[in-house]
């Protein structure tokens, strides 16, 4: 559900192409196969959660500069701090609002 909202929000930004992944593993695989300018990930995901994904992305030289936005739940400070410490570039808290997503993405992509 949240993914649908994020895709909607991203569709409001021109020149952005979105690739969706069901979980962290699929996301990482997509990341290795193509070039991406930005990653948005929920902190809670099946198989590989958002924190592990950030860690893996940052440990790979090819993706270490790719901005990562983490969606955190219920305003959990601890999760947010961990995500930022692991190398997330920004976070968004639920409930998701499209303007919030658009603003963060534009800021990180400098558009």
């Amino acid at each position, binding site marked *: 559900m949240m993914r*649908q909202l994020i895709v909607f*929000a991203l569709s409001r930004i021109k020149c952005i192409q979105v690739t969706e992944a069901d979980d962290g593993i699929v996301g990482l695989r997509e990341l290795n196969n193509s070039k991406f300018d930005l990653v948005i990930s929920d902190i809670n995901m099946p198989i590989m959660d958002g924190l592990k994904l950030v860690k893996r992305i940052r440990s790979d030289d090819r993706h270490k500069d790719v901005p990562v936005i983490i969606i955190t739940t219920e305003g959990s400070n601890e999760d947010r701090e961990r995500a930022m410490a692991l190398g997330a570039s920004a976070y968004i*808290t*639920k*409930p998701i*609002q*499209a303007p919030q997503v658009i603003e963060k993405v534009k800021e990180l992509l400098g558009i």
Partner: protein
Amino acid sequence: MSKRESRTGPPGSDRPDLRAEREAFVRSFLRKGVELTEELLKENQELQREYRKLEEENLRLRNQIASDGAIRDLLERIDRLEGERNNLMSRSNELEVSSRKHDARSRQVEQELNDLASLYVAAYQLSASLSPRKVIKQICELVEQLVGGERFALYLISADEGQALPLDSRGYEPGELAPMALADGPMADVVLTGTERVQDDPANRIEDVPLALVPLTVNGQTIAIIVLENLLPHKHAWASVDAELFRLLGTLGATALIAANLYSDAHTPGSALSTLKTKLDPKDAERAMDPAAADVGV
């Protein structure tokens, strides 16, 4: 004359006194002439000075007139430019007001678009599954992720037993929720009337009363209820779309729950629709059009 003649005698016989007199006269005449000439010259010089002065004055006045004309032209030009400037200022103000209006309208449209996206996602998710467990999960996720509920529960209403049975919840300890008797109180009122009850200002809420009671109704009958106790800590007020989300949950949530439950008995889409044809005969259609005759009815 005759007297003078008699004194001076005939011409050519001038006497010395006469000659002296004549010479004195001539000298006097000449002096007078010189004086007169000098006066005339002086007067002429003064007149020339006066003439030059007048010419200068004339020139000055001409210049002044020309200068006054230039000033007049300049003043007219300034007036014209000021008029143009006022027009431009007024146009600029109009444009500014119009721009502000457009900005406000643009923000409003953007907000409405976001609200519609939330409603679309909610409706899509509610109708995306025919598994009762998934439908219940979706209802809870909608309350959690779109409304921003932190502590809430979804109860099934058992009209026969006069009870509300907890189906799922967020923010409660396992086993914390038990079936509740619907005797009186706000929850019983909402179940009875099928009308949601939402506190206007979550930041200044009435304690001991849930923030929102949202009935899930079908044909005027409440089949379930969402009891929202708390919002997420960073959500201090309702969003514009929350009321619509509650209404959508109240209607689509109820039908999704019933459809999923009926489908789970049928096991396959084919068997779920096996009796559809028989329900489309005119008598049944008539019955379906009459809400009084309709049952819980999907």
